[in-house]
């Protein structure tokens, strides 16, 4: 979809002069490299095309002597060497209403898609984008027979579900990776109403980004649990990096874009580059938002409608609230109801204040994610009164009540979020040192795309650190007694070489976000993924009731691939 990038801040007279001087001086030695990059790619062989530099946002032409630098990984694309015409064409997804005991065959495979006039090879579950929407009643259990027909090993992780541990889909923790051609059977139980998503847990920077994701919506059997609405619409947000050659290659041996993660420039909503929804005037739409992007945090605004926030990852908030926008981080889900009062065509946008790290400036960025067309026809059933009321969810408050006695207990465990970066080319290291004076709480865009691209899992190691033991990542190994309630403080170190926001996900359990930066939360919802901005401290209360050895990790795909994960065990 369209992206607009209004003019960046105008520099002051002094800095403009210096800017001009610097541009001239720095452009001279870089000129030949720039020319080669601009004129040669079409005639190069495939290998050279694969090594092309990434597309950048307008105004981020980085002529800083980095033209010849490349990541220390082999560029790689799904279906390498496969003729796309031999692959099945992907199709929009279907809704599968499954009952307790049903069986689903879920096949991950290569598909052909046409995006921006290019034929590209991507991945899909059951040839669908996104994967089939699984709709079940709470407490159902289904059997999923997974068939890996990819060119990579894979698994299926059932994100957010308090699932039985052997079916959590984490390679080398709960199961062996499923090799290409292999199969695995998952028994998937749905204990909590809410909106969830499923995805591979192998090379998520490639497999998820290239199309392997789908939602599960778990309905409560309680009558009236959800507000009456005219329509429901899942919105799965993904962004892929795309240029005139098609998908931009991934790193084969390990992730590239390892510092900030891969920010795409082609926004896909439910796998569609041109998402459209038609409703009638006065309709209330319940949107289920899921961010499956590698790294992007969105600030979603529903133009033309009033927006009511209803729920988060694992069910409703205690109280509904009106909101202007919905900031959603990777792997999180939010449920929002929007009423469209007037006929017209309204965009759904991502509206952020982006950064150009090279220039040291902010600029407004507005990305159109999709459009809602409101017809002049009045709604079939007017829910204005119900929509206009902010409801309290007594059942949620009652469920949380038994945990309140732990709210003021001391912290049980602490985590520090930081990074170690070593071995980048000297020029990159020097430029990054020039960029260490400020990092925003959340990186809304890739403000240093080429330096980010050059960094890989060979150079960057993102770290979860237990400051009480000094252990890091997979050496941490916490243990909690089954049924314990655990208070965990997570602090995002602002002093590391390149601090960044982290969406931290705990597998197999649910938690409450008790406070952010010392401010207690006064409207709670059960969650499985919490965003920790740079410099922030978040305290969560985890209901450690689901036995097994589980993973906790940053859900920025490249951060996970570069080590930012740990295990914890819930057991006797």
């Amino acid at each position, binding site marked *: 979809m369209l992206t607009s990038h209004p003019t960046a801040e105008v520099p002051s007279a002094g800095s403009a002069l210096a800017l001009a001087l610097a541009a001239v001086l720095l452009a001279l030695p870089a000129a030949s490299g720039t020319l080669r990059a601009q004129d040669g790619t079409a005639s190069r062989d495939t290998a050279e095309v694969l090594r092309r530099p990434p597309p950048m946002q307008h105004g981020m032409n980085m002529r800083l002597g980095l033209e010849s630098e490349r990541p220390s990984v082999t560029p790689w694309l799904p279906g390498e060497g496969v003729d796309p015409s031999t692959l099945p064409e992907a199709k929009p997804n279907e809704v599968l209403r499954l009952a307790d005991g049903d069986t689903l065959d879920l096949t991950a495979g290569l598909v052909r898609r046409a995006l921006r006039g290019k034929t590209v090879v991507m991945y899909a579950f059951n040839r669908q984008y996104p994967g089939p929407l699984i709709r079940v009643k709470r407490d159902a259990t289904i059997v999923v027979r997974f068939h890996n027909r990819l060119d990579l090993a894979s698994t299926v992780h059932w994100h957010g579900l308090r699932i039985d541990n052997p079916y959590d889909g984490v390679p080398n923790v709960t199961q062996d990776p499923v090799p290409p051609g292999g199969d695995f059977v998952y028994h998937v139980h749905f204990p909590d109403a809410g909106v969830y998503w499923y995805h591979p847990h192998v090379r998520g920077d490639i497999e998820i980004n290239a199309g392997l994701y789908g939602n599960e919506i778990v309905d409560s059997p309680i009558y009236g649990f959800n507000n009456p609405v005219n329509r429901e619409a899942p919105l799965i947000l993904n962004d892929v990096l795309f240029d005139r050659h098609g998908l931009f290659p991934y790193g084969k041996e390990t992730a590239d874009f390892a510092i900030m993660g891969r920010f795409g420039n082609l926004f896909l909503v439910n796998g569609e580059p041109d998402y459209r929804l038609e409703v009638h005037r006065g309709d209330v739409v319940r949107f289920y938002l899921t961010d499956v992007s590698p790294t992007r*945090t969105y*600030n979603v605004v529903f133009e033309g409608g009033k927006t009511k926030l209803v729920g988060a990852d694992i069910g409703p908030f205690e109280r509904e609230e009106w909101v202007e926008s919905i900031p959603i981080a990777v792997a999180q889900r939010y449920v929002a109801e929007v009423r469209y009062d007037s006929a017209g065509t309204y965009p759904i946008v991502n509206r952020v204040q982006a950064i150009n790290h090279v220039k*040291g400036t*902010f600029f407004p960025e507005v990305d159109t994610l999709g459009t809602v067309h409101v017809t002049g026809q009045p709604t079939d059933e007017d829910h204005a009164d119900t929509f206009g009321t902010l409801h309290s969810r007594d059942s949620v408050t009652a469920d949380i009540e038994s945990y309140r006695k732990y709210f003021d207990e001391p912290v049980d465990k602490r985590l520090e979020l930081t990074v170690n970066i070593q071995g980048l080319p000297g020029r990159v290291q020097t430029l990054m040192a020039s960029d260490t004076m400020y990092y925003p709480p959340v990186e809304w865009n890739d403000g240093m795309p080429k330096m980010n691209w050059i960094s890989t899992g060979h150079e960057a190691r993102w770290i979860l650190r237990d400051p009480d033991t000094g252990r890091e990542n997979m050496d941490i190994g916490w243990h909690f007694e089954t049924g314990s309630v655990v208070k965990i403080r997570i602090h995002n170190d602002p002093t590391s*070489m390149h601090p960044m926001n982290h969406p931290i996900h705990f597998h197999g359990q649910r938690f409450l976000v008790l406070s952010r930066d010392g401010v207690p939360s006064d409207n709670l919802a059960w969650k499985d993924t919490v965003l920790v*901005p740079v410099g922030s401290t978040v305290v969560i209360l985890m209901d450690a009731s689901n036995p097994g050895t589980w993973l906790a990790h940053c859900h920025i795909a490249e951060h996970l691939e570069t080590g930012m994960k740990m295990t914890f065990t819930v057991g006797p």
Partner: protein
Amino acid sequence: MRLRSAVPALVLLALLGLAPAAAPATRSGPSDPTSAGAEHAPALPHSRLAPAACGATARPPLYRIDLKPTSRAGGAGGSALLRPASTLFGVSVTADGHHRFSVQVQVRGLPDPSSLGSYSAYVAWAAPADLGSVRKIGAVGTDGTASGELAYEKFLVFVTAEPSADVTEKSGPILLQGLSPSGQMKNMLTEPLLNGGMPPC
């Protein structure tokens, strides 16, 4: 509302904020108020800060602005402590994507405002770095603090002497001023020149 009388001084401040040797860059102290107190995690040892020679140790606090005195304020000083505004989400932003902060201004050592002229109060203000508008944070109370909420990215905080605590537009002289941490972002093109051809280490 436009800020007219203080424009030259504030432009100068903005320029100073871009300079590589700007005072906040070398300041030490608590990293940020949001990690202070009961939920504060211990600072990391310097051996884990990379690169060792530059950047990390010189980076100003992310959530604190030191307020420096103008010539009329003598030895006064202060700070503006930023705290992400309360939110249901993981981050608090406006519909335009501006980060929302609660701000608490603390001042010390200011003279009685009447000693500066026909003034009876001190008022804290904020303005985006382009000086496009000025927003009142609040009047400085007898406890030396003023509180409010901001939604800017790169901005200035300053304290003026005013004829009344109830003023809605700034008219008096600036006594204290400071630039937001985001104002410390460097231009990678200009920085080597401004710093004698070296990166700002």
